[in-house]
């Protein structure tokens, strides 16, 4: 009985992070000139929310957005020359984002500028329960994994973080 309980807890822990950043992605930090590594599980998010002020608009918004989340994981690398990461590095992420759980809601590839941007959403019923953003430029690679229920309106409100709101989203520019 104890073993089952332990295994269940272990499984829950593994599920908390929707996707796993492969070793080859984590190793890119050694080549990068600038790295952002954010690993916040639900415990850390709860702790963070206690330190986000209600009086500052951005922090209040962040506090509201993270209130139901189970994790935020970001890896962002800036390189001083192109070619420091390979398409295979991205593929190891994409293989984890398969239907029916995951669906790609947006994907842009710019052959001229060598940019790739993809947005994946995890849906359970009519709820969005996960978001993955892959943004790759010749000298920059960013992978964002947000775990937990995300209100579609929050995606629009994210625009308040120093940039204009998303078009077509509440608070965003109307077409």
């Amino acid at each position, binding site marked *: 009985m104890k073993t089952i309980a332990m295994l269940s807890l272990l499984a829950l822990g593994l599920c908390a992070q929707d996707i796993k950043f492969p070793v080859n992605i984590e190793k890119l930090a050694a080549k990068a000139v600038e790295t952002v590594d954010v690993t916040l599980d639900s415990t850390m998010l709860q702790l963070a929310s206690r330190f986000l002020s209600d009086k500052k608009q951005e922090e209040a918004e962040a506090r509201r957005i993270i209130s139901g989340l189970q994790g935020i994981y970001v890896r962002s690398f800036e390189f001083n020359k192109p070619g420091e990461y390979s398409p295979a590095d991205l593929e190891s992420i994409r293989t984890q984002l398969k239907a029916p759980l995951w669906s790609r809601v947006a994907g842009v590839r710019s052959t001229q500028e060598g940019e790739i941007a993809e947005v994946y959403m995890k849906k359970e019923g009519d709820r969005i329960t996960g978001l993955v953003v892959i943004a790759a430029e010749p000298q920059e690679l960013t992978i964002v994994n947000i775990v937990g229920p995300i209100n579609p309106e929050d995606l629009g409100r*994210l625009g308040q973080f120093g940039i204009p709101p998303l078009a077509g989203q509440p608070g965003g520019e109307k077409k």
Partner: protein
Amino acid sequence: MMDRLEEELRRALTRKEPPEGFTDRVLAAARAHTAARERRLPWWRRSRLVPAAAVCLLLLAAGIALDRHRRREVLARGEAASQQVITALRITAAKLQMVQARVSRPAEGNNRI
């Protein structure tokens, strides 16, 4: 010769009763000696309560210091976590905005995939 020695020994070893009040005088002298010795000790060594209180105070101080250290640690972790949240949401916002801009205004050379 032996008889005289035995006689002297017997006399010397004969049980003699102590004078009246000898025991009381000895005990009184011992008490006085102890009291005098305690008076010579500094005040903080005269009672056992003082070292016990000192140990308690030390433990209390250590507990307070540990608690403050833990609070500082939680504060530092919390502030770092809140900054990480802001950073993560800013990056997410920037990337979503970039995708949105590309999708809504596809430039030449851009392909929706």
